[in-house]
């Protein structure tokens, strides 16, 4: 139980600093977005000097400091990959440092500023813009080019999500989204044969579950992942949470209000108890007290271990389009690795190798980002139904500092509305006003 708690907390913290990098910038821009910053110039020189990228590193022994936040069930898989890499590359020693995500995003900027940071690491794509704006991480366009990674091998959403201000900052490792977990025993008892796919079938399923004696089949969390459910529903309803240029928040739109009203309606209709505090909907699901919960696919390994009979399906289309919130782990490099030719070369080898091996990463309940690998890797895995719907996932836009904006405003509005302390409209409106204010401040401090 403690382990789960720790893990859940990690997930919870994730959102606190959520700020995403989704962009529809064209690939062409990504490919030619070089040479505009000092780092880029240095990097360009580096790749030129290194010549053709062969995937091999034959320079002197180097040590790479590699930071990530895989503290949950994903940790052992990452450690296994690193061990394997070290074994296959005797002249590169990758030294991993695992810090839970909550602290990760506080510590990396500080460490890099002090020159004690990682050479290479993994962060969430919604953090890339923030850290790019703070010059913690450097553009990787030339790396992507040298690795011959291109949009063809990734779904457009995932690929373009690593781009901030026309430059690529992240090499996608995986995608992880929100999904609908359901208790298969409960479904069987209620006579539900197919997982619901739209509002009609979803509500019918809830009613059937109630009729079968599961009085509160769908607990509605006020905190994590409540705001991720809200974002999914907002997108489904045709809304957008934030302006892509970072100038204003838009989650208080009519679409947003409807989405939040639907969520609160689940409580009002008695499908959920009131006052569902953090994590309790998930614990209840594991204990078989509730039948359906929407949570991230990274919970799969934990649910497997808990023994609860479950399956998962994409989030149903409650509104017009079947869309889901998602995030992605992306490799980054810091400015310090650019200064050292050998380290830079080794880091490229490392990222390329990891990207090739990302099939194994599916075991960590993630969906590999590369299409050439994905299908085989997730075949027969619990996350398979989601992996086939990657065009239906949505990321937060690449606006620096948006993670804090969201945790300071949207998350609390969602909590207040679901707890019944404020009307959805009033909650979203005041939060939206404050969010826009914060975003304007951010635009100013990040230099617009």
């Amino acid at each position, binding site marked *: 139980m*403690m382990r789960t*708690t720790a893990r859940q907390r990690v997930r919870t913290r994730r959102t606190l600093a959520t700020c995403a990098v989704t962009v529809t910038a064209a690939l062409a821009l990504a490919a030619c977005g070089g040479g505009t910053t000092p780092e880029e110039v240095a990097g360009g020189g580096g790749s030129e000097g290194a010549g053709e990228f062969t995937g091999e590193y034959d320079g002197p022994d180097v040590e790479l400091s590699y930071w990530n936040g895989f503290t949950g069930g994903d940790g052992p898989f990452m450690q296994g990959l690193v061990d394997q890499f070290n074994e296959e590359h005797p002249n590169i020693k990758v030294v991993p440092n695992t810090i839970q995500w909550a602290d990760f995003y506080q510590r990396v900027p500080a460490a890099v500023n002090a020159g004690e940071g990682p050479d290479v690491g993994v962060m969430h794509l919604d953090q890339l813009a923030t850290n790019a704006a703070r010059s*913690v991480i450097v553009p990787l366009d030339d790396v992507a080019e040298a690795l011959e990674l291109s949009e063809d091998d990734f779904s457009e959403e995932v690929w373009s999500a690593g781009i901030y201000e026309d430059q690529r900052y992240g090499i996608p490792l995986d995608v992880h989204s929100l999904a609908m977990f359901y208790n298969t025993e409960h479904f069987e008892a209620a006579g539900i044969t197919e997982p619901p796919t739209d509002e009609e079938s979803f509500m019918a399923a809830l009613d059937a579950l109630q009729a079968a004696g599961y009085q509160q089949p769908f607990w509605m969390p006020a905190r994590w992942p409540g705001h991720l459910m809200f974002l999914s529903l907002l997108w489904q309803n045709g809304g957008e949470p934030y302006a892509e240029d970072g100038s204003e928040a838009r989650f208080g739109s009519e679409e947003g209000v409807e989405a939040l009203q639907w969520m609160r309606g689940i409580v009002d209709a008695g499908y959920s108890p009131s006052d569902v*505090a953090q994590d309790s909907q998930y614990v209840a699901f594991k*204990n078989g007290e509730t039948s359906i919960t929407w949570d991230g696919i990274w919970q799969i390994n934990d649910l497997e271990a808990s023994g609860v009979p479950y399956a998962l399906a994409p989030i149903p289309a409650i509104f017009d389009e079947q869309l889901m919130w998602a995030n992605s782990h992306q490799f980054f490099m810091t400015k310090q690795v650019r200064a050292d030719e050998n380290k830079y070369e080794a880091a490229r080898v490392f990222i390329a190798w990891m990207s090739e091996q990302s099939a194994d990463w599916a075991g960590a309940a993630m969906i590999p980002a590369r299409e050439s690998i994905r299908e085989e890797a997730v075949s027969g895995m619990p996350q398979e139904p989601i992996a086939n719907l990657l065009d239906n996932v949505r990321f937060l836009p690449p606006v620096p500092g948006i993670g804090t904006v969201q945790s300071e405003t949207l998350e609390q509005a969602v909590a*207040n509305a679901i707890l019944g302390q404020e009307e959805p409209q009033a909650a979203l409106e005041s939060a939206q006003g404050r969010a826009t*204010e914060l975003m304007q401040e951010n635009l100013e401090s990040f230099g617009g």
Partner: protein
Amino acid sequence: MSQTRVAAPGDTVDVVRRDQRASRRGVAKHGKVTPWLFLLPYLVLFISFVLLPIVLGLWISLHRWDYTLPGKPFVGLENYQDLFDSGSGIYSIFWNSMRATGIFTVASVPLLLVLPLLVALAMNRKFPGRNLFRAVYFAPYVLGVAVVGVLWRYLLDANIGLVNHYLGALGLPDDTAWLTSTPAVWVALVGVTVWWTMGYNAVIYLAALQDIPKELYEAARVDGANRWQQFVNVTFPGLRPVLAFITMITIIASANMFGQSYLMTQGGPGRETRTAIYQIAETGLRNFSMGDAAAMSYVLTAFLMVLSVLVFWLFRERRS
């Protein structure tokens, strides 16, 4: 000093004075550097971890200070003005967090002063198993805030928690949302904090009680004082210096409350239990607005300083 006066009869004081004279001569012989040498290790820590941060913090509070950005423009007193300008975005956020801190302090300090005293009085008596009980009351204090927070978060959960389950079994209302509704959330936070830290105050009280000379009680009994009169006229005056100390550290500890609401309520239901320290940490460490956060810290410090003066004034030695 006042403690010596209460606890030690006259001749003991003389001995102490003689000792002091003797040691003073010794110091003079070894030069004036000796005391400084002894103080040096602490002084180094004090300067680098208290004095310098205080000065640096003041400097930071005058800037828009994001340490990851190259520019840290000087803004003078703007950060402070924003905190006191009801039109600024940060005004209500900061003062709501100050109010949360205030509510918590007002609710928890009296309990943390009175309950541990009662415990200490009971533990000061002779009865079988006394040491066990002393340990039992002190035990929770050994736990870290993370353990306490996570433990009680599950115990107090409105829907899956044990507390409501047993309340229901006893026929009491079992639908109190301890962590997601006010004012229940304050009851939960204060209750957990009292359970957690009571032992510490009790130990200090106990030490002070044991310092009160038995002769004073004997004399009081000879004069015909009953238990209550003994408490009012012997125990309470004997505790006064310690009481001032406990009051002060309890107020400061309560005003610094962070972990409990961070872990148990995430500042919720919405942001009602987001205390000042919570807000400072969020602003400075997560949002990188070190300037705003530093200014908030100084305002909070100012409040605590005024409060300290007030407490010392309340507990001052009244000479009749």
